[in-house]
């Protein structure tokens, strides 16, 4: 799944206007927080009186919902909505028995943001390997500034270290999935993550849903930032920069990116290149219990139109249709987004994966690893716990 992101107001207004033009009806957009969306969907989707007609879902939740018939079969619209041009990995997690139930909405990816001023002061360069990144973070680290700010339970960012060392969260054997935290490569990645966290992050070990763009900015009246380096979804760049009061709302601040102070780079691989990071992004689907199937399909046509796809790209969200990726532009953020997304990975396409995420086991596990626990014994313990859920629909 995903996290963060999301559809700016101009795009929401466009959808409402176009839907009205197409059908004469009203499109109501209700915003859900990622934290409780899973539970809300599980309750609302089977209820014809309360279900959303169309919903965005975390891409990693797709198998759980599609396998229990929560979404309408939209295979007949697949070609009309983009067909083979749609992001394959996201299409695949929304399929059951060759039929399309959920399609990609947008893709995102994670990359590294850093403080150029702190790197220059410490005499360090942008790293080209993952071990170098840890060394640099350790040099930059002190009691008030994390060399690399990373929440202890923040598994969605931490999992990139497992992927980078060639490990994975789970492996498929026939039609069954098995948690693979104990795989030697997963262990290697977790030990590297543990070293980074314990030696270069001041973030609380209990912090799961980090907002590290807050920590890399210099807050008003603070001597300096709390973070020299962070990893975050690409859209976080909107929130990183020099802070000033928002002229529209004095309870808020606006961040303006400053190239002199801030920079971005992709998470380097163990031996160079680009590390696979956890893919961000969402899928989209029509509720099977919706009483407005025809209207819902009209909305899908608007969302997958050239105009809307290019609006997504212009707002830094990777368009679902590869024909429109150029709409992301060619600035440093677009380049980092595309470069990191190319090698990014999804969580296991297991029927019970949403249950695993909903259980909080991954937060617990990563928190205990980063608290300095024995990685091998923790991995064995949590493999067993995850195996109890991962194949359950």
């Amino acid at each position: 799944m995903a996290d963060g992101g999301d559809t700016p107001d101009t795009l929401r207004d466009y959808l409402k206007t176009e839907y009205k033009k197409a059908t004469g009806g009203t499109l109501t957009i209700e915003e859900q927080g990622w934290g409780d969306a899973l539970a809300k969907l599980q309750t609302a989707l089977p209820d014809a009186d309360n279900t959303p007609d169309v919903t965005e879902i975390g891409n990693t939740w797709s198998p759980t919902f599609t396998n229990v018939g929560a979404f309408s079969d939209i295979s007949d619209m697949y070609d009309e909505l983009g067909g083979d041009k749609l992001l394959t990995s996201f299409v695949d997690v929304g399929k059951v028995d060759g039929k399309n139930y959920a399609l990609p909405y947008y893709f995102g990816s994670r990359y590294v943001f850093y403080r150029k001023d702190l790197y220059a002061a410490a005499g360090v360069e942008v790293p080209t390997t993952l071990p170098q990144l840890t060394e640099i973070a350790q040099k930059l680290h002190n009691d008030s500034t994390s060399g690399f700010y990373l929440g202890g339970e923040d598994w969605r960012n931490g999992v990139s270290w497992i992927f980078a060392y060639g490990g994975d969260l789970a492996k498929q054997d026939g039609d069954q999935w098995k948690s693979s935290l104990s795989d030697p490569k997963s262990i290697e990645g977790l030990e590297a993550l543990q070293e980074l966290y314990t030696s270069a992050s001041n973030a609380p070990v209990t912090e799961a849903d980090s907002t590290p763009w807050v920590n890399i900015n210099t807050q008003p009246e603070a001597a300096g930032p709390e973070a020299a380096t962070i990893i975050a979804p690409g859209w976080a760049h909107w929130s990183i920069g020099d802070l000033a009061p928002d002229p529209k709302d004095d309870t808020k601040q606006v961040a303006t990116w400053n190239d002199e102070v801030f920079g971005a780079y992709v998470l380097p691989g163990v031996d160079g290149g680009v590390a696979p990071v956890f893919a961000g992004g969402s899928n989209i689907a029509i509720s099977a219990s919706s009483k407005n199937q025809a209207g819902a399909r009209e909305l899908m046509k608007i969302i997958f139109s050239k105009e809307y796809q290019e609006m997504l790209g212009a707002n830094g969200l990777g368009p679902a249709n590869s024909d429109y990726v150029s709409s992301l532009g060619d600035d440093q953020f677009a380049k980092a987004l595309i470069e990191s997304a190319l090698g990014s990975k999804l969580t296991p396409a297991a029927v019970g994966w949403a249950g695993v995420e909903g259980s909080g086991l991954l937060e617990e596990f990563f928190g205990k690893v980063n608290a300095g626990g024995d990685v091998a014994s923790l991995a064995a313990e949590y493999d067993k716990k995850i195996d109890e859920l991962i194949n359950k629909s």
Partner: protein
Amino acid sequence: MKRKIASIAAATAALVVLAGCSTPSEAPNPDDAKGQNITFWLMGVTPRTLSVTT
């Protein structure tokens, strides 16, 4: 620990409820969209402005 077990049980129970969903077997008539009021759930908020934290 009890709270964790309860949350796992709740998640599993909700998924069992979902298993009762049935997928419409035929595509609807496009004309039926006329005048339909629909709801779209979107996730999250892009933090392009930040709450003051100090």
